């Protein structure tokens, strides 16, 4: 098992956001985390990279145990070197060019020489089809292009797993496709991914596992094929059917 997440709890004051979420991830899994807005999906993902501090819960990642409530700074840094995070609103460094956005972590974080960092970065940008915009600044790009650069930024760091937090939710409909096709390619290349998403086509066709959450609980988790073809609980069935009516 690459990643075991056990019993994550989190509350904001007296509002329970995560009530004992667990998940197992194998290498190469693409897990779609689904559920209505406010169900805690994003918070769950952020807890895994210590962007939020969980109230309790633990995680075993590649054999190392992390207490999600109180990990040491050095543990968090070590974890973040092997994981990567793609944000809903891209969060590209606004004062840096496309190339610098990708090289900054390599040069300062991973201590790679600039020349080599540039080569790695250009390679990563080529994979997402953005190698022709090296000297553009984020505000000069469309949302879809920014998100692809953000994906290149994490690919360059060669993570073992990538967390995607609603990577297409801020995009205009016509720009969603270009980001999803990059993610589909990653999945085919065997990248392990946890994806909070509302894109059902992606969940159905690209992901192999589903974690369906509602009101801070896991309603259903398991194979994505099973989930869509034969949902176990009444609530999952409703969810899947409501999506079918849109299609």
């Amino acid at each position: 098992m690459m990643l075991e997440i056990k019993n994550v709890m989190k509350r904001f004051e007296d509002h329970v956001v995560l009530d004992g979420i667990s998940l197992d991830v194998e290498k190469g899994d693409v897990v779609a985390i689904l559920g209505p807005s406010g169900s805690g999906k994003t918070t769950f993902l952020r807890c895994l990279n210590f962007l939020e501090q969980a109230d309790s819960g633990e995680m075993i990642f590649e054999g190392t145990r992390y207490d999600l409530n109180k990990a040491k700074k050095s543990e968090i840094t070590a974890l973040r070197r092997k994981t990567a995070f793609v944000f809903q609103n891209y969060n590209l460094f606004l004062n840096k060019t496309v190339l610098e956005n990708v090289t900054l972590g390599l040069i300062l974080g991973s201590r790679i020489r600039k020349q080599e960092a540039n080569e790695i970065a250009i390679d990563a940008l080529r994979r997402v089809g953005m190698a022709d915009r090296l000297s553009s600044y984020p505000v000069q790009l469309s949302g879809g292009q920014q998100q692809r650069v953000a994906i290149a930024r994490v690919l360059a760091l060669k993570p073992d797993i990538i967390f995607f937090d609603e990577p297409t939710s801020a995009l205009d409909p016509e720009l969603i496709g270009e980001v999803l096709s990059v993610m589909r390619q990653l999945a085919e290349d065997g990248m392990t991914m946890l994806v909070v998403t509302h894109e059902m086509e992606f969940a159905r066709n690209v992901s192999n596992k589903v974690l369906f959450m509602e009101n801070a609980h896991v309603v259903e988790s398991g194979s994505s094929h099973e989930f869509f073809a034969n949902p176990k609980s009444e609530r999952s069935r409703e969810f899947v059917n409501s999506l079918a009516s849109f299609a």
Partner: protein
Amino acid sequence: MNGRLWGILADSFPKLLGYGIRVTVPLTILSFLLALVISVIVALIQYADVKVLRQICRFYIWVIRGTPLLVQLYLVIYGLPSIGIVLDAFPTAVLVFGFNEGAYMAETMRGSMESVSRGQVEAGYCVGLNFLQIMMHVVLPQAFRTAFPALSNSLISMLKGTSMAATITVMEMFRQATVINGRVYESLGLYGEVALIYLAFCTILTALQHWGEKKLASYGGTRS
């Protein structure tokens, strides 16, 4: 207007300008650099919420903003010698102007840093940067751009404020004007003249501000 006045103004102009360039400008630059360093450090400490140090920073800002500049100048030049600290007039002026404007600029910097989106910091952590690297390469450059017009205000106001150094015997441009006036009694002409030179200096700074804003805008384009 008579020939005598024109003669006085023509004679005094190069002297005043000379003191302006040799004293007022360096005094402004040194004080502003000191203020800039102080403001960044004080803003960083507050942004990072460093315990104890943060309280000290708030205390510094409270005291400096709550007392007159002139009183601060007098305290240092005339007050401190009684406890054995004797400073020359020029370094006193640099220190007091620097620490004084630094308190205002620290608030400008803090506000600008807080206006940088939290996501920029999170993205920094997620690509493996540490806190200081994120500050130096991501937050401060963006904050500096937001703060630039307000910092330019501080610089312009400081340039004029250096005239107050005259009260603690620094021979800068304004004090030179009072000295010349003491001999020739042409207050309207001489103070008018020195005012025009300050205006010219500030006009140059304003032009520099516009140029700087254009430079800094290159990575921003229009704000989205």
